[in-house]
């Protein structure tokens, strides 16, 4: 077996690569490809004071906040599509003042990861000129000055040095993010950390490339030779990845294109009920996350029948028969 084998248990991966106070970036988008198994493991290991960076992650961010792991967040969208126009714990924590938030747009967060991935300190955009994203800083200058891990400025506005007209040409420079660890869930990976994602990839690739460490959970471990047959379908390379863990149903209750659909019963009916009530929420944490040993036990609580009902059609990649209301 190669020295570069990165297979390990999820418990070990989180122990090794996620620490109190880390800057964590979460892959996936609203209710698809959220790295839920890893999120639950982080809650189970009682990791605290996390600094989260994400574009539009829904379910993963919300459970992590509800699990008491998050101190501050930089994000573009704390919602879950039509399942939750605003994520419930996200909303409650900000309204109560227990979560510090810095607002960017989706493109800006993507550019920040992209700058990190490219190894440059910033990238330029025209987005947000004249808005409160420029004017109001969730992390004030003083707060930033005191914390070396934050850029001194939320963003900077600069003139285009190539402008040869008398028209105004200003750009918003957004600062790079290089997270301590990025956590994603994928369809397939090999033991070395080569990863194949199918369907939309959101900003997962920029997040992975920007990060010091990367934990990949996946539906299936495959041989490297299988991946070599279709290099166009592989996006992440072994030397960008720190840990690989096979976790079937690892994104449940969110969707994994070609494997399973999201679970509307969970997202539309069960979750809002428990997330709105602190007693119910504590029960959920105790029973479904902290009270189980691992993902396998969690899935047993969900039940095979329920999981089976979500399996994706081989052609369209979701379950066209799914009851979605």
């Amino acid at each position: 077996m190669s020295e570069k084998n990165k297979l390990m248990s999820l418990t070990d991966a989180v122990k090794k690569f996620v620490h109190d106070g880390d800057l964590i970036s979460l892959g996936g988008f609203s209710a698809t490809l959220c790295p839920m198994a890893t999120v639950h493991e982080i809650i189970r290991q009682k990791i605290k004071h996390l600094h989260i960076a994400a574009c539009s992650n829904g379910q993963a961010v919300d459970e992590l906040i509800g699990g008491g792991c998050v101190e501050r967040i930089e994000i573009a969208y704390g919602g879950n599509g039509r399942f939750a126009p605003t994520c419930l714990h996200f909303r409650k924590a900000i309204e109560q003042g227990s979560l510090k938030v810095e607002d960017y747009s989706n493109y800006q967060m993507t550019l920040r990861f992209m700058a990190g991935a490219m190894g440059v300190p910033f990238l330029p955009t025209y987005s947000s000129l004249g808005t409160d994203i420029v004017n109001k800083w969730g992390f004030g200058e003083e707060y930033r000055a005191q914390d070396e891990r934050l850029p001194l400025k939320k963003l900077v506005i600069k003139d285009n040095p190539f402008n040869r007209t008398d028209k105004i040409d200003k750009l918003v420079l957004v600062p790079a993010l290089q997270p301590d660890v990025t956590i994603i869930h994928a369809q397939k990976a090999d033991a070395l950390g080569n990863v194949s994602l199918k369907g939309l990839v959101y900003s997962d690739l920029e997040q992975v490339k920007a990060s010091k460490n990367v934990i990949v959970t996946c539906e299936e471990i495959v041989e490297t030779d299988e991946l070599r047959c279709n290099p166009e379908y592989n996006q992440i390379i072994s030397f960008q990845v720190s840990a690989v863990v096979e976790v079937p149903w690892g994104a449940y209750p969110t969707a994994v294109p070609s494997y399973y659909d999201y679970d509307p019963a969970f997202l539309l009916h069960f979750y809002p009920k428990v997330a709105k009530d602190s007693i119910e929420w504590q029960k959920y944490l105790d029973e479904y996350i902290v009270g189980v040993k691992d993902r396998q036990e969690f899935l047993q609580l969900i039940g095979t029948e329920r999981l089976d009902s979500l399996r994706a059609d081989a052609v369209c990649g979701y379950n066209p028969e799914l009851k979605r209301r």
Partner: protein
Amino acid sequence: MSEYTLQEMMAIVAAREVQKAGVDVILCGTGISTLAAVAAKKITTPDVVIFFETGAIDVEFNQMPMSLSDPRVMHGAVRLAGLAEAFALIQNQITGKKTLGILGAAQIDIYGNLNSTVIGDYFNPKVRFSGSGGACDIGSVVGQSMAFMELGKRKFVDKLDYLTTPGYLDGPGAREKVGLIGGGPQLVITNKATFRFDDLTKKMYLDSYYPGFTPEAIQEEINFAIDLSRAVEAVPPTGHELEILRTQCDPERMVLK
């Protein structure tokens, strides 16, 4: 005349506007926004490309998506890109000018600026919403945009609690002065009326009111005074439009109520 719901009216108004706008691409969100895009493609502008900020481009739906990342926007698309490419496509004015963005928000002001971040003080909010998502990006750079809003005094406000997405900011020349490159909003579609923006003042005016409503009743639901003088009664959906909307655009009735 056919019976129709106000939601159906909104979708059809949007579909007609897409044709008028002469764009090649619709950049849309979920819910009524996706429904409007599909209605445009099925009814008024069959060649239009439906595009999501998640990177799904030229999507052909079999089922309505629950989010921008729903696997339902992936199957049958021509391209699956990522967010970086999706937003670059509209910031780039060669392709951005060919694109119409569809927006929505919790609050709108007279210049078409939108708030989808907080009610109350940003640092101590009464209500926290999801935040910009891609809305600020779309409003900043896309060639033209329209917004779906519900009418009401808490929605059409004198001053936004937070300016998430730029419309015409504080009036004529303001976008140019701060350096914004996109075209700004063209149309606001509500459940009772539509609004456009005056070429000179960039202020919202009543463009049309739906059958059964009056300009004066519309003004009652808005927290700032608007010009009612140009308003006409909107043409209701035709039977043909309704037929396609109901049977081909959302047969599962995921959005249509």
